[in-house]
């Protein structure tokens, strides 16, 4: 996930000796090893280290979480929770991977499909063209309205 590719933008590293407060926005990859409160937003990858504490709303393209997060997480592509991860908040992602031992308290939504197979089947059946009788009824209704 965090392999360097050509043209990668530079990485922001929040080390264990600093605390960041506010709306943190980065254009490149972000590595958190310290304390962050507020929000974290990046268009690229986010890695939260095992000793990091994040009290923030998170938004990223990909994320690997090994530390503690208190706040909602929204990841566009892939979210990986290691065995030391502690999440207290809702999670929304496309691909979710959870290692055994990870703690997750909150609503979890993974995958791009929003509806189950049965719901889809129902939808297909409902969208089939209906018999001619209702059409006639509709015409009759129209006439009745005109008479009125």
């Amino acid at each position, binding site marked *: 996930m965090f392999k360097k590719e050509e043209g*990668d933008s*530079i*990485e*922001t*590293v*929040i*080390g*264990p*000796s*600093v*605390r*960041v*407060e*506010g*709306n*943190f*926005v*980065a254009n*490149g990859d972000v*590595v958190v*090893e*310290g*304390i962050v409160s*507020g929000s974290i937003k990046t268009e690229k990858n986010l890695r939260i*280290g095992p000793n990091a504490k994040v009290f923030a709303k998170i938004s990223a393209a990909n994320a690997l979480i090994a530390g503690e997060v208190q706040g909602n997480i929204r990841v566009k592509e892939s979210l990986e929770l290691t065995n030391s991860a502690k999440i207290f908040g809702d999670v929304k992602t496309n691909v979710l991977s959870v290692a055994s031992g990870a703690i997750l308290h909150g609503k979890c939504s993974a995958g791009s499909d929003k509806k189950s197979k049965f719901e889809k089947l129902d939808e297909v059946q409902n969208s089939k063209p209906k018999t001619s009788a209702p059409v006639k009824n509709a015409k009759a209704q129209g006439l009745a309205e005109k008479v009125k």
Partner: protein
Amino acid sequence: MYLYLYDYSLNNQKYNRLLAKIETRLTDLGIGGKIFRLSPLRNIEELLNDEIKGGIKTIIVVGNDKSFSQIVNFAAKFNVTLGLIPVGDDNKIAKTLGIRSPEDACNIIAARIIEKIDLGKINNTYFLSNITINGGDLTIECENKYKITPEQQNEISICNFKPLFATEMNQTDYFNPKDGTLEILVRPLNAGFSHFFKKASQLKNSIFPFKKLSIYSKDSISIITDGQKVIKTPVKIEIVPDKLKLIVGKDRLF
């Protein structure tokens, strides 16, 4: 038209032979020009102002990092090209610019590869390489969006060029004076020298690329720009993209 500014320290006799050699080489290459010897009594800004009015387009500093950084602050205010012939001790900037020796510098000036680079600006002073802040209880406010508060004793540097202690950091990723950003580097002071070159210790450092920030502190803290000028907090620091035209060598580090 070239203007050669000789550092005050080059008045020492030990440099006479080297300077004569440099002057001969410059004449051979057809890039000779006016020579001025800097002194503490001479006002550099006035001198540059007069010479630029007289048609000088290129200023070459003959000296070390200190003299070069001093001239950068003035040269940035005028639309001139700046070059360096490293003479004397403490010539780290020359390495970054791809200049290995005084002789090499003459050839580089003749080849005239010009790069436009970003400069940092702290209040109204330009800086080329970096700013250092030692300790103190301070708060850094970045891009008017978030605050960085050091939790323990740290050494804070704001870098345009790659600092020498950041030997293992990927040069292409950080500290590029052409990328339109400056970097804050926060190093915990208790990391110890023995851990200095270990890769794991890098995780203890914090690095934030930024364009604009302010530094506040309860007590006034000294900030040293390019190892020479001292400015007190509070300060505003920002990047000024493509501000300076520099003559660089092929082996430059950016």
